């Protein structure tokens, strides 16, 4: 059991730090982050792109899904096999 100690400790610590992040106030977050904007996530799935348009790092300057009939950004196209 002792050999697993670092793994158990890491799990405990990550859970505890996660709880701290969850209970941090918005003010604490703004104070700590200054004017930093949330980083964007690269588009991986259409559903995420639709649900979180402001969080998405849109390819080729787009800011939302294209209108119907317009070509889809390559990052959102289904992979060809």
């Amino acid at each position, binding site marked *: 059991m002792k050999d697993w100690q670092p793994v158990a400790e*890491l799990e405990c610590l*990550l859970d*505890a730090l996660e709880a701290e*992040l969850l209970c*941090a106030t918005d003010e604490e977050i703004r104070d700590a982050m200054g004017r930093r904007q*949330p980083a964007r*996530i690269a588009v991986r799935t259409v559903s995420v792109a639709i*649900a979180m348009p402001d969080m998405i790092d849109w390819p080729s300057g787009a800011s939302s899904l294209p209108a119907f009939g317009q070509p889809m950004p390559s990052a959102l196209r289904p992979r060809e096999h």
Partner: protein
Amino acid sequence: MQRSAERSQTQPARLARTTEQVAHALRRLTDAELLRLEALARLRTRGLPGGVAWSDLLNEAVRRALDGSRPWPPGVPLLAFLAQIMRSIWSELCRRDALERRIALTDAAAFCRTEANEIDPERVVAAAQTLAELHKLFARDAPALSVIAGLADGRTAQEIRDILDLSEAEYDTIRKRIRRILLRQGLVGGKP
């Protein structure tokens, strides 16, 4: 028959409502909440095998929330829900990595004899390295480091206060510093 037809109609409707609720809640997240989400994802990515990026982890958590593979329990705040999903993915990835290494290192017969809880030295080393990195974040703040050590031991707030002889107010002040360090340092670096 009719009942079964009703069930098949209500099931997708229930799923769609859940998806819609999750999507609606995600769209309403403020910048501060998005930063908090980013910090949670970055924290959980620490020590993950295979160089998984925090945005991959977050994307996968959001996808699971949206497609209903992880239903959003009533009464649980969205960020706590997404944090739970990221935790599950983190555990899955750690387990899968350990399993893949065992398969690669042992022949089939030996693998069958291997205990599920057998120690995986690489996972232990990776965990020790990640722990050291996290401790390093708090290296300049001795009281915070002591609290971190207590948290890693799985101790409760009361136990930590008793051991370190801290009042509730002192403990809360240290926790506040921990949060500040975590937010300032924890959001720097790492894979995008």
